[in-house]
């Protein structure tokens, strides 16, 4: 994707947002299998918590459009859109979420612990845990004299964790080529950002680390693309870290099964009316993209996802005795 023209990036961003959204759409019924009529998280082919990324796709594609396989991304407990945009093996990722032997880690990790070493992607279930590792990966590139970068994703809620402060300071002190990307969806589970964050804009916190801070309004892939492009280029040039805060939204509950009683009435409808994917399609069409091209990209995205789900469902569960493998390398 490195040398892509902007229009190519835009088509890729559209196709990738669609792919991510379709991925989540396929997760939904699979997750509820075995969980109806009584919802019990332990049941069905996809047990445990499930954090969907519907609505947050612009954060993934606008940033990852600029990345290469040798760039590192650490994502969060809500990782699917970013994993897909980073180019994580879709089949192995899907199989991992189904806990299958063919999964990225043979079913050991699950949806919050997706690792794909080929594209240097990782995520985790502890808030702000990925920030330090991103600084380390960035420092590794710098020490080797390579121009690869690292991106650490985090939520608005994570910006109040001590790990955020430590990682940003460390990145600045070491002038590490890392970009911190806050997906501001206005909530950490049920707690509104405004009720737990001392500043209105987390981008302003960049000043505490003498690094550039950017706020991107409107959940707009093009706007994210522009700002991230500059921050990433800056990092590649050896000019150090940046912080980007992206205004986005979570169209689903915090996790599947969330009753969302903490939302003001009508909020989800308002957000859905602003769904970034149809908006982006409209913009691309208005700006002269060919509907047939978009449709083809869309169909190809969906085909890949459907194939991944089919393969994942067909794959074997791991042999239980393999549970002891890989505790140590």
């Amino acid at each position: 994707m490195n040398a892509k023209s902007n229009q190519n990036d835009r088509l890729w961003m559209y196709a990738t947002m669609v792919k991510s959204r379709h991925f989540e759409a396929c997760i939904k019924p699979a997750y509820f299998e075995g969980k109806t009529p009584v919802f019990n998280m332990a049941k069905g082919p996809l047990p445990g918590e499930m954090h969907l990324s519907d609505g947050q796709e612009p954060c993934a594609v606008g940033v990852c459009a600029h990345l290469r396989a040798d760039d590192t991304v650490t994502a969060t407990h809500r990782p699917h859109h970013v994993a897909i945009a980073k180019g994580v093996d879709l089949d192995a990722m899907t199989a991992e979420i189904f806990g299958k032997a063919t999964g990225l880690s043979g079913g050991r990790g699950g949806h919050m612990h997706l690792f794909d070493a080929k594209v240097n992607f990782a995520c985790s279930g502890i808030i702000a845990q990925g920030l330090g590792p991103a600084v380390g990966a960035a420092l590794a590139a710098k020490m080797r004299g390579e121009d690869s970068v690292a991106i650490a994703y985090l939520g608005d809620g994570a910006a109040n964790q001590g790990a955020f402060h430590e990682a940003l300071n460390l990145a600045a002190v070491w002038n590490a080529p890392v970009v911190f990307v806050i997906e501001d969806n206005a909530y950490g589970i049920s707690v509104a950002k405004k009720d737990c964050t001392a500043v209105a804009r987390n981008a302003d916190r960049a000043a505490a680390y003498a690094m550039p801070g950017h706020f991107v309004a409107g959940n707009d892939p093009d706007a994210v693309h522009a700002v991230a492009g500059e921050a990433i280029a800056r990092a590649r040039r050896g000019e150090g870290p940046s912080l980007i805060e992206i205004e986005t939204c979570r169209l689903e509950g915090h996790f599947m099964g969330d009753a969302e009683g903490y939302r003001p009435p009508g909020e989800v409808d308002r957000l859905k009316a602003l769904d970034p994917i149809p908006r982006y399609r409209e913009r691309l069409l208005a700006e002269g993209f060919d509907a047939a091209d978009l449709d083809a990209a869309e169909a190809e995205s969906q085909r890949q996802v459907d194939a991944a789900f089919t393969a994942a469902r067909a794959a074997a569960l791991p042999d239980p005795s393999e549970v002891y493998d890989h505790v140590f390398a």
Partner: protein
Amino acid sequence: MSSPEAPTRKLTIARAMSEAIGQEMAADSAVMVMGEDIAKLGGVFGTTTGLLEKFGPERVRDTPISETGFIGAAVGLAGAGFRPVVELMFVDFFGVCMDAIYNLAAKQSYFSGGQVTCPMVLMTSVGGGYGDAGQHSQCLYATFGHLPGMKVVMPSNAHDAKGLMLAAIRDPNPVIFMFHKALQGMGWLGTVKRSITHVPDGDYTVPLDRAQIAREGRDLTIVSLGLGVHHALDAAETLAKSGIEAEVIDLVSIAPLDRATVRQSVGRTGRLLVVDDDYLSYGVGAEVIASVCEDGAISLKATPRRIAHPDVPIPFSPAMEHHVLPSAGKVLEAAQAMLEPAL
């Protein structure tokens, strides 16, 4: 407290916990609640349902995702005369805030020579079995039990949950109140039915430092806690069909450990099996076995055994997770093996 009590009013542990906290908040204005998602949401695990509505946002405070910050603040509040009940959503998150727990809260009384106490309850969910993977399924009983200055308890049923919570809030020390997700009674998690018990709606406490005999028996002592107690009881019921009477001890308290009750039982039965779902090495099983074996007055009829989660991160795939978790079947099998020579 004023409603007429139905003699068989059954509650889940979640309801019992929130009822206890609510009653104590009504009785003592120093009691307050803090944590992530404990106000509007009523706690991810239902521990604070209804409290915001009853007591308002001053005393029921949603916090930022800042465990070190708000547990530290709770210690400050406790030192200043409040009685904060704080939630650490999953025990797995202890790694971001353990200093505030073990070096601050747990040592305040000691470092101050008793001048400043720390009456604080830290409630936290433990346990897996529902596919939530390796950072959301741990137990860490021994991690907390190992470090001095805090009491550590976990109920196996709703009756004890309420009584322990009332005792914990009133205790002048930091109390880690663990609750097991498989027993919590959240619809979305599935719940062992036996944990949903009659809960008196009045005021009562369950001692924080005493193990309970959950089932009497003469042939074998099975020591466990939380979910493991139910595995043990299930196994005991099966054993009883073949005339073997297992005594089941619910530790209730991890720290202090009620060694006397365990020793007394094993002294009678001569056989000890320990069951827990925490990691095996340096765990509850080791401490209980050592506590019995170092008592020269006890003579064993069989080699003591322990069942625990092996020293492996908790795998996501149910195919693997259930392979490593303790179960009634595994308890039964171990018990039978221990009894074989005697049969």
